[in-house]
């Protein structure tokens, strides 16, 4: 991948980011004034007005926008109203949790799907294949939040072997990871299975077989390579989705990630938090996309990144 | 002499811009009279298709003019263009691609009528469709089928029937049989010849197969790298081609005359077709020509009568000598 290519993409990403941040600026402000939320209901009108002035909300939207744009250019994301500290600090505490959660779930899903998918494809039409098919369809269709609740009910409330929620050692990650794991796993098994079956029927594999290569090698070198490409693409898309936080799952488990932060931020009209999270997520997505492209190129030399 | 049906003058079609555009069609002039069939031959990539598409107004002309029945094709717009479409129709090369697979035959055939309301009233579409199908050798019940239910030759008949719906005066046939099996080719060519006679159609018949061209054409035109390099009556071209390229093409055609078999040596051209973006200087054929001399590098030969063969125009510096040697 050439450096100029990277620059070109970065430039486009920066433009898109600017557009998004600008729309986010106006959108969050349209969601309503935070003042009522931050003052006791018994506070006087004068106190409300004073807070508006203090937050600069009394000025015209345009004036606020220019101030904000200037701060953005100097990467100043402002102070979180709720947390009462720099918004970016708060975001950067939550982001690694989300990324780790998403990465663990996706990597596990990817590995499991490659394994399951190829087993199903090799046994195409048989009992194993049908079983895998049903399982993966179910996994791809199960609502993650529901899975989370049922997990809590079963493993935490009934058997008491896993914590209900929260954050801490590895054991706290089991249920959230399992919930996020389901859908990517189901989707990827379908894809791996489908493209492997196709590849196994394709001429080049027959050729390879005719040349006397052992069956195992045929399957895993040719067909797998063929199946990896779409699997990587889909995983990349999913990774981009997860970067925005396994929103619902994070809420279910009280997991301190960016998705929960963002939802809370909007609920609490914490403009700075919302904007900083959007920014951070967008940057992460940009790098994920680059990473996927590089992976793509390394799997299939025919794909030239351009 | 009456005014020709189609008069093409200095027509060019270039692709791309900047210093070296691709000159797909470069300064081409020719005429087609009413009822006349002009054969156009050349290798693939020589600009035949671009010429056809320009005439059909599927792409803009870069310069020059083409006048059909007094109407300037290159400048026609709006209703003038719409009228023009009626007079000039096309049979495409690939009958699998040129028929929308999702439309039933009756809709396919009547599509032009739908686009030119007033020509045939809707109530008579069915009747006319059946008539057309029968005239191209298909049956009435075929009207209710989809293109996928037909063989290649049948599809091309459908294509021809559809081209005739508007009763055009000029039919452009862009390699109409090259996608078909040899056994079917003759049937379709014969059909075209028959229709031409019946309807007094003028045709521009494009092909790379000389045998087919010979069968239907009155006159023949040879194209190389966007230029016409030789043109003349069928007899002259086939019996006494003056341009080395034409000769090379002819040598590949099996002769119907058994006496001549074995006497003619097959000329195999060396090298590939040069890039039309950067054609050779002087004569464009010189890079593959066994007769090329220095003059060919320096001067571009004009399309002029160079031999005694009647009506034959050749763009070759060495055409006269060739003729002389033959004698």
């Amino acid at each position, binding site marked *: 991948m050439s450096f100029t290519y990277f620059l070109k993409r970065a430039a486009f990403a920066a433009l*898109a980011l600017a557009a998004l941040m600008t729309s986010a600026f106006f959108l969050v402000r*349209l969601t309503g004034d935070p003042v009522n939320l931050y003052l006791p209901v018994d506070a006087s009108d004068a106190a409300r007005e004073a807070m508006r002035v203090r937050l600069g909300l009394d000025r015209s939207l345009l004036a606020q926008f220019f101030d904000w744009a200037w701060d953005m250019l100097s990467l100043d994301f402002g102070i979180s109203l709720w947390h009462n500290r720099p918004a970016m600090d708060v975001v950067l505490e939550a982001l690694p949790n989300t990324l780790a959660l998403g990465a663990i779930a996706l990597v596990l899903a990817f590995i499991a799907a490659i394994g399951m998918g190829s087993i199903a494809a090799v046994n195409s039409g048989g009992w194993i294949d049908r079983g895998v098919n049903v399982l993966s369809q179910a996994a791809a269709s199960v*609502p993650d*939040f*529901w899975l989370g609740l049922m997990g809590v009910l079963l493993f935490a409330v009934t058997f008491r072997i896993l914590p209900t929620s929260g954050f801490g050692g590895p054991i706290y990650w089991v249920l959230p990871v399992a919930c996020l794991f389901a859908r990517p796993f189901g989707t990827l098994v379908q894809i791996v299975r489908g493209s492997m079956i196709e590849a196994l029927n394709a001429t080049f594999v027959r050729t390879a077989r005719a040349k006397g290569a052992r069956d195992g090698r045929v399957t895993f070198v040719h067909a797998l390579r063929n199946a990896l490409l779409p699997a990587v693409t889909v995983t990349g898309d999913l990774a981009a989705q997860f970067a925005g936080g396994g929103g*619902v799952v994070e809420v279910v488990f009280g997991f301190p990630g960016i998705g929960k932060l963002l939802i809370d931020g909007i609920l609490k009209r914490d403009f700075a938090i919302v904007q900083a999270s959007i920014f951070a997520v967008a940057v992460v997505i940009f790098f994920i996309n680059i990473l996927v492209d590089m992976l793509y190129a390394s799997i299939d030399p025919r794909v030239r990144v351009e | 002499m009456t005014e020709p049906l189609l008069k093409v003058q200095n027509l060019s079609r270039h692709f791309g811009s900047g210093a070296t555009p691709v000159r797909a069609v470069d300064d081409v002039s020719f005429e087609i009279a009413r009822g006349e069939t002009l054969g156009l031959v050349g290798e693939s990539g020589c600009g035949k298709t671009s010429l056809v598409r320009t005439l*059909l107004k599927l792409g803009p002309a870069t310069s020059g003019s083409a006048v059909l029945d007094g109407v300037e094709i290159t400048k026609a717009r709006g209703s003038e263009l719409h009228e023009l479409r009626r007079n000039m129709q096309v049979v495409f090369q690939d009958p699998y691609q040129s028929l929308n697979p999702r439309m039933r035959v009756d809709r396919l055939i009547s*599509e032009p009528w739908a686009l030119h309301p007033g020509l045939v009233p809707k109530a008579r579409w069915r009747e006319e469709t059946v008539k057309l199908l029968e005239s191209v050798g298909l049956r009435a019940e075929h009207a209710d089928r989809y293109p996928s239910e037909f063989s290649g030759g049948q599809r091309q008949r459908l294509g021809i029937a*559809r081209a005739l719906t508007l009763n055009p005066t000029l039919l452009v046939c862009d390699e109409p049989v090259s996608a078909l099996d040899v056994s079917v080719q003759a049937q379709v060519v014969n059909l075209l010849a028959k229709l031409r006679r019946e309807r007094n159609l003028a045709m521009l018949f494009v092909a790379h197969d000389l045998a087919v061209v010979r069968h239907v054409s009155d006159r023949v035109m040879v194209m190389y790298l966007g230029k016409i390099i030789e043109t003349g009556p069928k007899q002259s071209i086939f019996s006494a081609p003056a341009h080395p390229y034409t000769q090379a093409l002819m040598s590949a055609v099996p002769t119907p005359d058994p006496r001549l078999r074995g006497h003619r040596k097959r000329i195999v051209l060396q090298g590939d077709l040069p890039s039309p973006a950067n054609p050779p200087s002087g004569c464009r054929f010189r890079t593959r020509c066994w007769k090329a001399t220095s003059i060919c590098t320096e001067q571009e030969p004009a399309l002029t009568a160079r031999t005694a063969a009647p009506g034959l125009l050749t763009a070759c510096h060495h055409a006269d000598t060739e003729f002389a040697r033959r004698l």
Partner: protein
Amino acid sequence: MTDRSTEFLPAREHRSRRILWLARALAGDPMAVAAAIWLLIVVLAILTDAMSLLGDNRISLKARNLPPFDFGQPWTLWLGADALGRPLLVRLVQAASTTIGIALVTVLTSLIGGTLLGVVAGYFGGIIGNVIMRICDIILGFPTLLVALFGLYLFGPSVGNLVIVLAVTRMPAYIRVARAETLEVRERLFVDAARVFGGGSTWILRTHILPSVAPTMLTLASVNLAMVMLFESGLSYLGLGIQPPSVSWGLMVAQGQGYLSSAWWLGFFPGLAIMFTTMSFNLLANWFRIVNDPSQHWRLLSRRR
């Protein structure tokens, strides 16, 4: 070139044979059969409820959180009762009409809008096409949840807004596919032919491009139906979608969360319903894709032997 024309020659029987063939193809996929049956049951249930044949749905605080599988009760109570004593089964059916209705309307909206925009972008290109595609890039570049959050906060979480937000966030996918397909179809010879007959842009778009693009778009839509359903459930679960007293499966799970340890069935059954229905849509979409792909027909037909 495979020419299956002989299979269908007599024109009159074409259509009825096609239906027969579809039935055969469906029978070749037992999972698709199961999916079709499930969806049929759901649709029938919705219809029965629409004709108010399901009986009493009144709040009855005495029957609050009645446990399921008590077969001594009237059959509507076999799945238990909800926190306000309403039969859970009836609630599930009412929620089904919201959930599935929203999914259908959303998919239809984004299908129509996305196809039109994509076809326009692909056929005409130029500035309009570019603008459309760049907007798509931006929407696609950011998490759907975020776009949805904004939309719903801005306009309030009503059913109409939910549909709009979901449709807008799904639309870029349709636009991209429609555009790519159009770019391909646009170059086909039959489009040139239509132009030579004097067909203008509108004519070509309407009679040639749209019908050619449609099957792909329909396949995409059938896959999306499942996706939208899951997404709506998620939003409703977060309190951003359907609001009480309306009811959707996602909202039922959310409300059931408060009864996780006291009345598990309140959240369990609606989640199960989401899963079954989503799965059915997925399976049928899969089947539909194979049916529409001649190179894969054998998968459905050969199984019968």
